[in-house]
Structure formats: C-alpha cells, structure tokens
C-alpha cells in the first residue's frame, strides 16, 4: 500500500511538522516499514541546507562526522551550523557552486555517507519504523514552515532501509522532492535514459526516477505543472505521487486512478492524503475534500512576492 500526505499553507508559515506527523501516525496503517518527511522553510543562516545520512543504523556516534563531513564541506563554503541527530548530519552553509560537486564530495568523504537532500528550503528526514519514532528522534512536530510532503512505506520492491525510503530528493536539483504510492513498471528504461543524460541515482527504488524525471524536465524549462503533466503518459504502472519544490506542491494520479488520494483546499491551506481519516487527525473538525480523478494533475504555488516567508 504505502501512505502519502502533504500540506501547504498559502499565506504564512504554519505547523507543517505537526500536521504531517499527525497524518503519518494514522497512515502508518498503510505502511510501517519506514516513515519520512520533506519539509520546507526558510533558513536562519546560510544559503544552503544539507541533510546527510552518515550511518545506516546509528544509535551511538561511531563515525567522526565532524572530520568526515564538516571538514569536507568547509572546502566548498563556510559551514555556519552543523549538528548530528540520529543517523543524520545537518549542515547550514554558504555555497554558490554546482550542487552535484558538493554532493559527490560529501558522499566520497566516507563509506555509507549519502546526501538525502540539498537546497535553500528543503530538508528530507526519513527513518525506519513509525511516525512516532521519527518524531521522537527529530522533533518533527515542532517544525514550522510553508509546506511539506511525507510518506509511510510498505515496501513491495527494493530494499527496506533508510536509503530506499521516501521522500526522494531529485539529485542534484535543489529543493525538489517526491513521495510515491504505487509501482513504476518502466523504471529501468526511464532510469537508463536519464543516466545516459548524466543523472545519478542513489537507490534501486522505482520512485526515485519520478523525482529525477521531473527535475530533468524543469531543468529544460518546463514549469512544475508541465513536468508533472508529462509524467502521466511517460510513467507506466500504478502511481499516485506528491511532488514539492521550494515554492510549490503538486500531485498526479495514473490513468486508471489505481492508488487513492483525497484533496482538500481552503482559503488558507491545501491538505492532501491517501485517505480522509488522516485529515481528521490533523484537522479534527474535518475538511471538505474530494477524491482526485484518474489522470488528474494539480499544483499550487506560494505567492511569488513572498517566496521566502519568515518562519514563525
């Protein structure tokens, strides 16, 4: 199955983390292998935030991450903040170079090191187990931001580990993330095409190809809406996915409407989830919602005048 959920506050930063964790706790019914979020907010310092996995299973700090990660990053720009939480190192830094260069350098700094997200606004945090555990480790509930997407996984293919969990970052394109419910049957073909164009993949998970495909389209000049629209015909198999960029959120459903999705929109927010029940957990008085149709694509964008809304 898998569960997906997203939230966008249209006019001001809001409790993105709290809303997503409440929805995910219910969506763990649809998948409990792993839980993850892609959160978007403004940075207090620096122009780049990087989330890096340093160990697959880390309860104690066995890796000298300051030496591995921070010293490597310092060669590329000033590291303004660094911290280690769970399996992750989080860096806030100044960087104006190519994202792929920094990504490769960080990943080559040590065995098992993997950059999970990079951007001006995006932070991907994912972990094995349930939403309540993710929240306990990373205090997701206290996160304030403009928007976010999230996922609970019931793995049907590819490994069950933190790397193969959702959300996926559209490496090396900043701020683009995807969560997916379904199965992309032409994954290998699409991946080969994108690899020939020079894109790199970190996992064997079919969902990663959606993120990279959309980012590739946008790099060629397509808007998010146009890129997502293309996926309806390019992707084969079953899919309902959510995509987010630094200032937008969107969804697409496959031609048969195989995987569920309900959408609620008010004057202030857009809330999206696999089922209606999780919406009740985050918004107890309920939201007026409707099931998305087959082949349906919708995207929302934050007001252009305020791409960088202040965090509360």
């Amino acid at each position: 199955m898998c569960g997906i959920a997203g939230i966008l506050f249209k006019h001001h930063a809001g409790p993105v983390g709290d809303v997503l964790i409440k929805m995910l706790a219910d969506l763990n019914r649809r998948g409990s292998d792993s839980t993850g979020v892609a959160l978007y907010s403004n940075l207090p310092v620096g122009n780049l935030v990087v989330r890096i996995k340093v160990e697959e299973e880390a309860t104690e700090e066995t890796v000298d991450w300051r030496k591995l990660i921070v010293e490597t990053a310092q060669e590329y720009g000033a590291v303004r903040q660094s911290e280690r939480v769970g399996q992750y190192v989080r860096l806030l830094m100044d960087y104006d170079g190519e994202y792929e260069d920094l990504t490769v350098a960080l990943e080559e700094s040590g065995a098992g090191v993997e950059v999970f997200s990079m951007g001006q606004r995006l932070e991907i945090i994912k972990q094995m187990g349930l939403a309540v555990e993710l929240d306990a480790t990373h205090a997701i509930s206290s996160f304030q931001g403009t928007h976010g997407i999230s996922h609970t996984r019931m793995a049907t293919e590819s490994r069950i580990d933190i790397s193969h969990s959702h959300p996926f970052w559209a490496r090396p394109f900043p701020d683009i993330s995807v969560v997916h419910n379904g199965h992309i049957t032409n994954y290998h073909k699409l991946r080969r095409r994108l690899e020939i164009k020079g894109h790199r993949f970190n996992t064997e998970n079919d969902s990663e190809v959606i993120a990279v495909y959309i980012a590739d389209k946008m790099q060629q000049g397509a808007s998010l809406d146009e890129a997502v629209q293309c996926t309806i015909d390019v992707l084969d198999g079953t899919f309902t996915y959510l995509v987010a960029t630094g200032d937008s959120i969107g969804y697409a459903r496959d031609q048969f409407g195989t995987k569920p999705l309900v959408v609620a929109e008010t004057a202030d927010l857009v809330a999206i989830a696999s089922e209606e029940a999780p919406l009740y957990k985050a918004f107890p008085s309920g939201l007026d919602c409707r099931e998305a149709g087959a082949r349906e694509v919708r995207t929302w964008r934050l007001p252009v005048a305020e791409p960088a809304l202040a965090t509360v």
Partner: protein
Amino acid sequence: MTASIDCAALTTREINQAIQRLAAEGEAEIHLLNPEARHSLGVTIFSPVKIVIEGTAGYYCGGMNDGATFHVKGNVGWSVGECMLSGEIVVEHNSASGTGASIRGGTVVVKGHAGARTGVAQKGGLIVVGGDTGYMTGFMMQQGIMVICGDAAEGLGDSMYAGSIYVGGDVNDPGNDAVLQAMTDEDRQFLSETLDRYGLSDKRPISDFKKIGSGGRLHNFSKADFELWRVAM
C-alpha cells in the same frame, strides 16, 4: 427507539458488534458519533435497522448490507455498499472509487460526486449520483440501473453486458460497446420519481438525460468485431 454509539473510544469490530447487538435488541435507529472516516463501518448488517453516520465514513461503509438503511451525513471512501443485497445507503456529500461496486440489489445514493469505477460489475439495484462520476463508471455492469446527474468521465459503461445508465451531463468518451439508447416516457417517469425521492430534482432537468446501454457486440465473438475486442481486452 434510538441509540447512539461513540466510535471514538471503540475498535471497528466493537462498533460493528454493538450495531448488531442493538439491532437484535430491537433498536429502530442507531447513530454513529465521531466516525472520522474510519473504514468498514456497518458492514454485514442483515437487519432492517436505520443507521445514521454523523459525519464521514471510510472504505466499505455498509458493505454486504442486506436490509439496513444508512444515512451518511459526510463523505464516504472507497466501495460504499460493496456487494449489497438489499437496503439503502444515502450519502450527503461525496464518495470515492468503487461506489456501489458489484451490488446485487438495494440503492446507493451519493448526493455529491462519486469516484472512479462507480457501479463496477453492478448486478442489480440502483445507484444514483447527484454530481459527476469518475473513470470507468459502470465497467462490466451486468444488470440494474445507474442515474448520474452530472458528467461521466471517460470509459462510461465499458464492456457492460446489460443494465441502463442515465446521464444528465456530458458523456465525452463512452467505453467500448456502450451505446446511446432511446429514452422512453417510462424512463422519464422513472427518473422524475427517483430524483424527487432523494431531493435531487434541481440537479438537472429530466430532458437533459441520455440513456446508455450495451451494444451487444461483445456478447458473442465475431471476427468482424475483432478491433473492438482487441481494445476491450
């Protein structure tokens, strides 16, 4: 007599067992409070009891119903009334995919919009939708009647064997072998009475309705219809 069950503190199994117990004790009407889109509410109820869901139900609401009357004040999720034999389910707002899937009898009314595959493999009974209906509505329908006041998405009535689908709005892309049939005075009389009964008369004038049925070309294989079969399969 009227009873109420607060779903908030109970498991789904406890809720459904409470419904069956109250119905056996002779309650005429049971209200479910705080349903919060929970799945499988009121499945396999075989008593002529009235169940009022004070909010939104999740998947399979009223599934396999035989004789009970449901009134859902909010939305329902997938497959409301799936495999119903008899009874009635009225939903005030929207429903999701598989609305009234495979019902053999009884009535499912959705006053708002219904999702994809509404009335898939319908084998009898009546499905009424006040708004639009989704992709492949009436796919492989075998018997019964469907009334759609709004528009029908692509694939309406694809590969249907028999039965009738009345559509008040647009049918832009009917499914394989779904054909337009002539409306009779009896059809109009039936529509008028049905919409009136569920307070849907203002949704669409009766004169707008079209009737869709099976063209019969998929009942028996014919080489001349090979292309149609190829697409249908």
